């Protein structure tokens, strides 16, 4: 397989004819794709086997990660995975209409989420339960979206964690605007600068809005980290349906840095995200991060991935599990004992139990909610509809029909 470098021949005659990428069967089995070559392009600090790889460039960004801090990252990942699995189970039991699993993407999300400061702003897509966790949002506050009671019950202003966006990619422009605002307000330009991070998937990179987000952020020097979780799949479509090239290279055309990190490596993701955020705080943004990871579960609970992908691929990725490598590393260095792992497990079970109970007890939202908050300054038309419908509804509930 030619190196990705060769597919980018910006000058004539500099490489082989550029044509769309198609993965070899070997690549697919190895959990790789034509647009997904690993190798030196991928920043990795912790191998799947839990070995710490020195990296002079990025080590400084995780110099403060003591064993205690690594244990905290481990705990984060275990807890968000547990909450995710509980969400999945709740859907299976009919308690949720749908669930969007993050399984396999814990390191990408915790690495990114823990790199953020309280003063930073986050624009998620719809799978970022792990990032939400890092923003101090109770998993319960996410449930309503999937149960169908609300669109998320956290305070997006207080938590600086925007509502989930379901239309693919359009939050990227909103994030660019927010980051422009940070700059216009003079909140950029030093260690204490603010930054914004926006999350989107590999599939989203095809959307016009994501491109326009790149253009705007570049032109306005916006302190914005584009965090693309390349989980290899957009529902049933592999990354080569979206691009010839590794996605982080998209940044090349806009004149800001693009970098690929092992998204199953929480340490590397933390380091790269901190670096990117620092660039933004200091006014050197935007930055594109491609976190190379894998969607271990279905797209959502309504999806059936056996229709479109080989189990080989999944098996290959299981060996790169984001949690396991941290566990091995902690054990190998004697940085965590069985008590620790047991206590995290117990905490996870408690979290799940709590979530489950909360879910079962979630009340039916009041009918009037349909009409609430359509406008900040109520519309007489909607208010009249509200009154009319509530009268009808009460009447009806009273058995008058």
């Amino acid at each position, binding site marked *: 397989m030619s190196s990705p470098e060769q597919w980018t021949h910006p000058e004539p005659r500099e490489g082989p004819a550029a044509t769309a990428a198609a993965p070899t069967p070997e690549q697919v089995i190895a959990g790789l794709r034509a647009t997904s070559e690993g190798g030196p392009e991928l920043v990795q600090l912790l191998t799947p086997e839990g070995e710490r790889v020195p990296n002079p460039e990025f080590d400084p960004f995780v110099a403060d990660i003591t064993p205690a801090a690594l244990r905290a990252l481990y705990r984060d990942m275990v807890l968000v995975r547990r909450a995710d699995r509980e969400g999945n189970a709740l859907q299976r039991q009919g308690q949720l*209409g749908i669930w969007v699993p993050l399984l396999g993407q814990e390191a990408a999300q915790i690495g990114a989420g823990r790199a953020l400061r309280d003063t930073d702003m986050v624009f998620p897509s719809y799978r970022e339960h792990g990032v939400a966790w890092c923003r101090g949002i109770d998993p319960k506050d996410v449930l309503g979206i999937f149960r169908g009671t609300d669109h998320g019950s956290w305070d997006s202003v207080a938590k600086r964690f925007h509502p989930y966006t379901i*239309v693919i990619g359009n939050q990227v422009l909103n994030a660019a605007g927010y980051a422009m605002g940070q700059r216009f307000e003079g909140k950029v330009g030093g260690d204490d600068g603010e930054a914004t991070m926006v999350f989107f998937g590999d599939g989203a990179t095809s959307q016009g809005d994501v491109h326009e987000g790149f253009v705007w952020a570049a032109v306005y020097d916006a302190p914005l980290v584009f965090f693309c979780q390349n989980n290899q799949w957009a529902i*049933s479509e592999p990354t080569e349906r979206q691009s010839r090239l590794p996605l982080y290279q998209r940044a090349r055309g806009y004149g800001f840095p693009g970098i690929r990190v092992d998204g199953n490596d929480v340490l590397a993701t933390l380091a790269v995200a901190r670096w990117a955020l620092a660039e933004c705080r200091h006014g050197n943004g935007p930055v594109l991060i491609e976190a190379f990871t894998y969607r271990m579960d279905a797209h959502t609970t309504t999806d059936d991935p056996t229709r479109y992908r080989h189990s080989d691929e999944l098996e290959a990725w299981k060996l790169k599990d984001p949690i396991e490598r941290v566990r091995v590393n902690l054990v190998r260095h004697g940085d965590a004992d069985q008590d620790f792992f047991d206590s995290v497990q117990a905490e996870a079970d408690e979290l799940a139990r709590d979530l489950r109970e909360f879910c079962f007890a979630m009340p039916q939202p009041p009918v009037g909610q349909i009409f609430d908050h*359509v406008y900040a300054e109520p519309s007489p038309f909607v208010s009249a509809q509200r009154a009319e*419908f509530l009268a009808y509804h009460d009447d009806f509930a009273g058995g008058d029909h």
Partner: protein
Amino acid sequence: MAPETNPGPVQSLTLGKALNLGLRTAMERDPKVIVMGEDVGRLGGVFRITDGLQKDFGEHRVLDTPLAESGIIGTAVGLAVRGFRPVCEIQFDGFIFPGFDQIVSQVAKLHARTHGRVRVPLVIRVPFGGGIGAVEHHSESPESYFAHTAGLKVVSCSNAVDAYWMIQQAIQSDDPVLFFEPKRYYHSGFMKSEVDTSATPDPLFAARVVRRGSTATLVAYGPSVKVALDAATAAEEDGHSLEVIDLRALSPLDLDPVFESVRRTGHLIVVSEAPSESSLTSEIAARVQQECFYSLQAPVLRVTGFDTPYPPAKLEEHFLPDLDRVLDAVDRSLAW
């Protein structure tokens, strides 16, 4: 999947399977017909409406496209100019908006812009409407935006037989057609019908009286047809004989059967899941009050979704017009 043995002309099909068979038939008949959209190939679409087509017709006739709706529609326009007849799937109603400019500025206008020299025979399939317990943007009824756009034709099927024929007719049409499919009934057992593939179908742009009646007229389309029919059945007990008309064509509207009906009944209720403001239901009311001014014994009433964003799933039963809200409107109309 291609059926193993050649089935007879009459098959018992769900609405979804009827669409699938209609697409297959159109693709067999004309090699220029291609299907494109997100996940329509290997997966067969998130609703499986294109199931088996890529396997049987190949990757160049069933395209798993990049994830961008403007791209899907914009390249379909170019393919149409080249002589293809693209059938685009928009995964859910709420995701048609990134492609809106291509629809309004290119799809709708290219034929007029070229003084008829360039035809744009493309079909944009949109699974639409609510009632599936989904998250935001998955239950919208955006048909009025397109009915308001000159240069487009807009239709909606409400049952398996129509689904089978209308999708083929839409593909054969030399005009661009927005094709709205009531997604909540794709796989409903009670929408299963005997589809006679050797029958002669009704024209594409014709409304149809689906139940005769004399007390009042109900007009509906897509998923609301079933609501209207159920209401008519229930009303029978109260001694009301309701006529139900399935519009089928949303633009151009075929209102003659509606006018004819209203002249007999004097009462009209229009049912739709879409918000009411500046909508297709407004148009029907506006046209009927003009054409049937002296026949109406009460104003045209509308039973629609509210003028609010589509609510979270647990509230959608209240948002969606149901049998009771329709009957309430009938009562109000008769008591006017």
